[in-house]
């Protein structure tokens, strides 16, 4: 396990591993998202209360899930890099940030389009909505802090630290609907015991969640490769790979 971990920490090895994984993730993502969209939008029955508006869940929930998963990936990679001085950790953190930020935006926009017909408002300063907005600003902070330093190493360290400190917001986003009186409903899938949804609605949702995860994996692989190339451009192995 440790050996595997250490090998992955070597830039050329991670560069090749990412290249090997990317097409599989992409393939699985295309399959799962394709199935999820068709089954969710066409075949799943409308909800007894929300009618067809509930179908927004098929893009909203996976986006929201990735917004937290992306942040966690970024914070963990940054922590590994800071503590064990494993430099590829910074590359992974830098690669995850814009992807996670984009899905946070997607969660906010799709949620607002769901809120308007169902709640009666596009936006409310509700604990869940507000903490998700803070998440977006944290992403922006981490991304811009990395670019704010002349010395890229200091930028990496500073943004990793901000990412780790900002991680306290992740459980707040997740549990906000249970800790406070909130306009937003509680979780449907991620709960102990049975999800509160019949299979005909649940299967496409699970497929979309898995598909978005695979999509994140594929995009992260491509971005990590780019990060490693630019960061290691003075090393001989990169020059051999590129000129070959």
């Amino acid at each position, binding site marked *: 396990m440790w050996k595997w971990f250490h090998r992955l920490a070597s830039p050329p090895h991670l560069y090749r591993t990412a290249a090997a994984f990317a097409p599989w993730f992409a393939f699985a993502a295309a399959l799962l998202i394709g199935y999820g969209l068709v089954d969710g939008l066409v075949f799943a*029955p*409308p909800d*007894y209360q*929300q009618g067809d508006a509930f179908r927004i869940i098929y893009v909203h929930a996976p986006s929201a899930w990735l917004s937290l998963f992306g942040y966690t990936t970024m914070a963990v990679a940054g922590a590994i890099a800071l503590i064990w001085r494993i430099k590829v950790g910074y590359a992974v953190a830098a690669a995850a940030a814009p992807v996670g930020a984009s899905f946070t935006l997607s969660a906010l926009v799709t949620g607002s389009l769901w809120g308007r*017909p169902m709640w*009666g408002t596009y936006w409310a300063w509700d604990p869940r909505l507000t903490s998700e907005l803070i998440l977006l600003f944290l992403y922006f902070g981490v991304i811009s802090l990395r670019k704010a330093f002349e010395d890229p190493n200091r930028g990496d360290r500073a943004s990793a630290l901000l990412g*780790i400190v900002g991680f306290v917001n992740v459980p707040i986003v997740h549990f906000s609907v249970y800790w*406070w*009186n909130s306009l937003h*409903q509680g979780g449907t899938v991620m709960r102990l015991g049975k999800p509160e949804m019949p299979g005909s609605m649940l299967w496409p949702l699970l497929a979309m969640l898995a598909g978005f995860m695979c999509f994140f994996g594929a995009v992260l692989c491509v971005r990590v490769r780019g990060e490693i190339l630019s960061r290691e451009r003075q090393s001989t192995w990169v020059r051999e790979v590129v000129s070959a």
Partner: protein
Amino acid sequence: MTPRRKRLWVVLGILAGVSASVALAVVAGRQDISFYYVPTQVALGKEPRDKDFRIGGLVMKGSVQRKPGDMTVHFVLTDYAHQVPVQYTGVLPDLFREGQGIIAHGQLGPNGVFIADEVLAKHDSKYMPPEIAASLKKNGANAAAAAPMPKG
């Protein structure tokens, strides 16, 4: 202590410190973060005075009254323990119906009637096709009852 272990503790320490201060802030401002008050809190006089606030609860069955040709609607919000009558003039969200969890924004009048200027509907985390909901209802299970509002 190796430098690596030291960095680990520094990072964990910062994270613990920030979490603790956030937790304290959250506990101190628990009510201010919450989006609404429930009828029980209003009955105990815990609602904010002299300012608008939100009140959330279930629309009591059979309590919705409308006069034809009038946009004003009267209904009663309940959290099963206490009730607050609400008066609202305007367009209601699609999900507004009896038994549904809703959140009203406005202020408490001197006669104990909550005068709302905005009504939002809260939907629960249960999803089901209409046919299943209908058969559940027929079999006596209370499908339409929204998840009870949190205690507050």
